[in-house]
C-alpha cells in the first residue's frame, strides 16, 4: 500500500524554468511533510519541510504548497539550475517517526 504518491517519475526542465513535483497522501495522521534531495551515490538530504498548519513555505528558490483538505502538497523550484539535477522525494511523517517516502522524481535541468 503506497501511502504517499508522487508524480511525475521524471522531469526535464530548461535552465531558468520552474520545476513542479506533486505528492498526495492518504493517512490523516501525517503531520510533517519534508522534501528530500538525493544526488547519485549520496544519502537523501532535507531540502525543505512543512507542517499542516500553514499552506505555503518558501526557502530561497524552493517553495512547498500544502492543501490539507485535498491531502496534497507540491514542491516548486524556481529558476531551476543544472546543479538542481537530482532525485527528489516527498515524504510524510507522524509523531512516532515512521517517515514514509514517495516514489521519487528524477529531475534533469538542461543548461
Amino acid at each position: 500500500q503506497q501511502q504517499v504518491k508522487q508524480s511525475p517519475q521524471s522531469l526535464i526542465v530548461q535552465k531558468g524554468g520552474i520545476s513542479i513535483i506533486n505528492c498526495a497522501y492518504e493517512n490523516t495522521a501525517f503531520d510533517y511533510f519534508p522534501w528530500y534531495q538525493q544526488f547519485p551515490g549520496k544519502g537523501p538530504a532535507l531540502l525543505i519541510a512543512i507542517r499542516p498548519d500553514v499552506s505555503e513555505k518558501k526557502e530561497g528558490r524552493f517553495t512547498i504548497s500544502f492543501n490539507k483538505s485535498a491531502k496534497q502538497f507540491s514542491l516548486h523550484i524556481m529558476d531551476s539550475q543544472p546543479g538542481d539535477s537530482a532525485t527528489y522525494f516527498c515524504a510524510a511523517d507522524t509523531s512516532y517517526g515512521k517517515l514514509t517516502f514517495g516514489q521519487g522524481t528524477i529531475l534533469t535541468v538542461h543548461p
Partner: protein
Amino acid sequence: DTAVSQTPKYLVTQMGNDKSIKCEQNLGHDTMYWYKQDSKKFLKIMFSYNNKELIINETVPNRFSPKSPDKAHLNLHINSLELGDSAVYFCASSQEKGGTEAFFGQGTRLTVV
C-alpha cells in the same frame, strides 16, 4: 566530521553468507533508523530505535536483525543473504522519533551474487 557514517560503503557477497553493516552518528540524536532503497530508488523504512529501544519494525524478514549497543550506534546484521537483498541500505538519525529532520548516511550498496 561526518554526522552519520556507515561502513562499509560497498559490500559484495555470495548467497547464503551472513554480513553486517555498521552505523554511527555523532549528532547526539536519540533516534536511529535503517532504510532500504531498491533498484527503482524507492526508500522504505525497516527499523527505528529510540534511546536503544526498538520502536518500529516493519515487515522485514527475520533474517535482518538490528542491534543498538548505545544511542550513537545502530548496526544491521543480515543472515543467509538472498539475491533479493541486493539494495542500498541507509542509516539515518533524528533528534526525536518523529516530525523532525532525518540525517542520512552515505549508504551501503549491498550486492548478493
